[in-house]
């Protein structure tokens, strides 16, 4: 068995030797270089361009502006499965270049040049005349009557408002003796900061436009490039090589349509668009900043009578993934701490800011920051122990969500809390840190998280797999699911080797994807791939095995049901005798003069289930009050992601998510000039993602309850590690100082304000 073992990554050797090819490594040097001209106003309209000086720069091939876009095909950008029901399709509000500017950094023109210096020089020389409109940056101000409107079709800038109503909130709060706990909790705009910026290149080949892109979702890119250019989707071929991280940013169509268009505008020449870091911060996607208002009505015995959440999600200028993100967090609210009387109002609102899209956790990190900060505030208000309060109120075993039909099969929350507490020595520390005084204090805090794997029943869940047997008994494994750094290829190879019965080195995962060749799939998002690919790998592997054993039957005259493939051999199960190697069989099958056959299998599995994936974080901090600094001393995450396919890679995945959670909780925030809407810290120096020195040792723990709905007992782990770290840190600071932050991150600026208000400094 390979599943369950910490086998080495299948791509590790190539990655430690520099042989792994990423998009830029593959691009031919003859490529023209494209650069985008971004608007320098936050709201308004382009009136005209003066490109005369720019055109004179030697090496400039062509300057194309929004006015050159003669065919206007509005397209959506979210990396969601397409829906054949128009009512469920993503909002198509983007153009390749836009005349109507909606944020500081909108795409209004592009330069194509022979080299990057010429492109940069030309960009600086283009003069733009704008008609400026007032703009709005604050999510709630954007909802006010009379606020600048971004899209005519959305009054008050509200992209979507959804509600959840359970029981009777108004009646429930009349119960005598209830304690009301109310708070506002806000998370900042943050960015993915994968180390490879977004990059793509495009070229015409025959009747096709071929786009090579650093994307998580090649098949979706194909569809949307087709939509944006108004051409047949089959006329688009998308190639996805290794990518240097994505984290949801590359689960959006970024500049593939523009790059393809620029190629077509220059006679199909190879055009490369390598987005600089500064633009990646602003002109790709960001995580939605969400302002949450929570009111809880709690009984003195520590149970909830009624709860209410209002969430205001800052969408930025265009719809992208839109309300899905806020809705996911809002959906978690009534489930995590079930309560009979709940009201939820979730709003996703346009503002003149960078476009928010998918980012690791998809709304759950924001929701957990609010909900778990609030849980701590509730405990403080009623004098409850944060651990006991959670144990008492968290989703119980046996809970079934009416919509997804997800069931909480196991006592994952308590098991995870127990394991995390033990790892960090919680009981001892929580006592030790009580009632501290002085400038420097320590604290320990916890947070849990709710997550669900995959997107069923909101969207399509399917996985397609192809296995092609080679002469030597090895086979190619192809899937629509993509390797984006998380180790998916390795997990797939482990599963495939087990199902077919071959050594792992006989499984060749085709990592580089090509929509002309790769089976259809909607790819990397929603922490779904190991879960959903498991189904198609198992189904396809069994089909391949059946075909092999059928052929073995023809060669050996043994009944197929007495045959098995074990360790790459055809074995008679009745006595364990090796009848032949798979290599012998495969060679014979291809070259037989009497019965030649290319043994392959391919199938699609549609998944109509979804799985909860729960866990927690416990964090220990030291707070230097006069210096307004919190230092993370220890942190542990514990997850129930079902059976781990590869424990070492699972642990590594948790480390990465924790790191992102630490940044989210302690230092990251993209900020904007109130006067102009201009981003101020869109570079890796001024945007503070955590460094090697900002982390303590990261501890990752697991409980492994086999997920009953899953082909391999496993479920989502990609995003969950990023979901509960920030509120755990916030709660640890609360424990240390008595100051509960209302805004993430817990950086010195926010701590200074909070400590001032609390008269600690």
């Amino acid at each position, binding site marked *: 068995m390979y599943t369950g073992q910490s086998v080495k990554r299948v791509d590790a050797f190539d990655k430690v030797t520099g042989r792994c090819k990423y998009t830029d490594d593959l691009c031919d040097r003859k490529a023209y270089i494209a650069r985008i001209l971004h608007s320098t106003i936050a709201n308004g309209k382009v009136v005209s361009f003066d490109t005369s000086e720019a055109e004179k720069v030697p090496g400039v091939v062509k300057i194309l502006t929004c006015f050159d876009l003669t065919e206007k095909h509005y397209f959506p950008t979210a990396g969601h499965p397409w829906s054949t029901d128009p009512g469920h399709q993503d909002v198509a509000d983007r153009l390749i270049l836009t005349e109507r500017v909606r944020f500081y950094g909108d795409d209004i023109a592009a330069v194509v040049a022979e*080299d990057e210096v010429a492109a940069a020089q030309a960009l*600086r020389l283009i003069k733009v005349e704008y008609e400026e409109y007032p703009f709005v940056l604050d999510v709630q101000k954007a909802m006010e009557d009379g606020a600048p409107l971004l899209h005519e079709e959305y009054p008050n800038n509200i992209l979507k408002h959804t509600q959840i109503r359970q029981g009777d909130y108004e009646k429930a709060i009349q119960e005598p003796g209830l304690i009301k706990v109310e708070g506002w909790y806000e998370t900042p705009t943050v960015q993915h900061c994968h180390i490879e910026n977004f990059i793509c290149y495009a070229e015409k080949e025959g009747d096709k436009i071929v786009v090579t892109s650093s994307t998580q979702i090649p098949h979706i890119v194909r569809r949307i490039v087709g939509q944006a250019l108004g051409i047949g989707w089959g006329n688009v071929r998308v190639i996805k090589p290794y990518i240097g991280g994505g984290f949801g940013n590359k689960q959006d169509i970024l500049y593939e349509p523009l790059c393809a268009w620029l190629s077509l505008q220059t006679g199909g020449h190879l055009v490369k668009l390598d987005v600089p870091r500064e633009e990646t911060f602003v002109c790709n996607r960001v995580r939605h900043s969400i302002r949450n208002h929570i009111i809880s009505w709690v009984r003195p015995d520590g149970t909830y009578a009624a709860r209410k959440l209002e969430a205001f999600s800052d969408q930025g200028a265009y719809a992208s993934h839109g309300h899905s993100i806020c809705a996911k967090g809002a959906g978690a609210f009534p489930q995590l701490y079930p309560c009979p009387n709940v009201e939820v109002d979730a709003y996703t609102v346009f503002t003149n800011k960078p476009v928010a899209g998918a980012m690791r956790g998809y709304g759950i990190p924001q929701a957990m920051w609010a909900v778990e900060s609030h849980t701590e505030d509730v405990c403080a208000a009623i004098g409850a122990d944060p651990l006991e309060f959670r144990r008492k109120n968290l989703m119980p075993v046996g809970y079934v969500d009416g919509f997804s039909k997800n069931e909480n099969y196991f006592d994952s929350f308590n098991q995870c809390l127990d394991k995390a507490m033990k790892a960090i020595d919680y009981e001892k520390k929580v006592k030790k840190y009580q009632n501290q005084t002085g400038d420097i204090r320590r604290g320990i805090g916890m947070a849990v998280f709710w997550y669900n794997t995959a997107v069923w029943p909101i969207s399509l869940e399917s996985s397609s797999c192809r296995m092609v047997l080679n002469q030597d008994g090895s086979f190619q494994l192809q899937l629509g699911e993509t390797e984006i750094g998380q180790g998916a290829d390795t997990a797939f190879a482990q599963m495939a080797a087990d199902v077919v019965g071959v050594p792992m080195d006989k499984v060749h995962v085709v990592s580089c994807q090509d929509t002309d060749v790769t089976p259809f799939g909607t790819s990397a998002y929603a922490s779904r791939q190991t879960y959903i690919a498991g189904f198609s790998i198992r189904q396809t592997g069994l089909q391949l095995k059946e075909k092999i054993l059928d052929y073995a039957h023809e060669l050996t005259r043994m009944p197929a049901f007495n045959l098995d493939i074990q360790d790459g051999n055809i074995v008679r199960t009745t006595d364990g005798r090796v009848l032949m190697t798979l290599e012998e069989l495969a060679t014979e099958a291809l070259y037989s003069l009497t019965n030649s056959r290319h043994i392959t299998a391919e199938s699609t599995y549609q998944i109509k289930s979804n799985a909860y994936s729960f866990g927690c974080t416990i964090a220990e901090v030291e707070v230097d009050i006069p210096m307004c600094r919190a230092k993370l001393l220890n942190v542990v995450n514990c997850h129930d992601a079902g059976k781990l396919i590869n424990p070492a890679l699972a642990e590594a995945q948790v480390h990465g998510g924790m790191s992102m959670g630490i940044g989210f909780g302690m230092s990251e925030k993209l900020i904007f000039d109130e006067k102009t809407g201009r981003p101020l810290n869109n570079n890796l120096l001024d945007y*503070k993602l955590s*460094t*090697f*020195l900002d982390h303590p040792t990261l501890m990752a723990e697991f409980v492994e309850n086999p997920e009953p709905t899953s082909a391999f007992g496993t479920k989502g782990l990609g995003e969950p590690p990023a979901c509960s770290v920030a509120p755990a840190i916030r709660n640890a600071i609360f424990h240390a100082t008595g100051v509960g932050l209302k805004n993430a991150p817990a*950086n*010195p600026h926010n701590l200074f304000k909070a400590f001032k208000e609390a008269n600690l*400094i």
Partner: protein
Amino acid sequence: MYDIKALYEAESVEDAIRLMQEHPEAQIIAGGSDVLVQIREGRRAGVELVSIYGIDAMRGVTFDDEGAIRIGSLTSFSHIAVSPIIQEKIPVLGEAVSLVGGPQIRNIGTIGGNTCNGVTSADSASTLFAWDAIVELTGPEGVRRLPIQEFYIKAGKVALQPAELQTAIIIPKKSYEGYHGNYIKYAMREAMDIANLGCSVNVLLSEDKQTIADVRIAYGVAGPIPMRVPSAEAAGKGQKVCKETVEAFSKAVLEDIHPRDSWRAAKAFREHIAVEMAKRALSKSIELSGGEIRE
């Protein structure tokens, strides 16, 4: 690929001066960690450069005949940090430059570049101010020396004449002998960051360690250029080593500093932190000097 109009590589100081005279519009590039970034941003695009990076004679830390410490302007931060002279005589300078950016930046970044770009956040600058450093400038007219406080004119502007080059930074013996110092960098993360505030303090205690014979304090980012804080120095100098002195010293800081309100940090926040930094840097300096702060 950088938007560079022309590059002239100097092989010696004289060569550099000649090239600057021949190309008066040219910008000097030392390690380039600032200049190249500015070219890429477009601020200095199309520039002519005189590269002095290859002038090895401008590297190294030595004593001169009078026991002054001479740091060649092209000495990288990482080489300053490991210099036995620095480690023995002014370890705080080594500590300060070890907080610049990250390791690769400390390998390319030079102390001359750090001071010649005239920015207030330079990690080396406040410590050099606090140690009464002297800047050696070499130009067509020969060599001249300026106290570092006079070298800085305003944000981004230093007292370099046309075709003049900063060739060394000198810490006189009387500035360092018997002094112990501490530098605190206040930034948002522990590496790869620029200072929101930098504070460098050094003290000379009386022989019995009971009195502050001399104290010097300088800040980065407390004003448009690095600065000394005379009010605090006056409040500390000649005073008893005690808690009260430390308090008075650190509070006095506010009389002289004038940090900016910016998106990087609010003025009120910077002022609050500045006082705390002064307190801690002085306390640490006293401790390193063998003193003990009593009630």
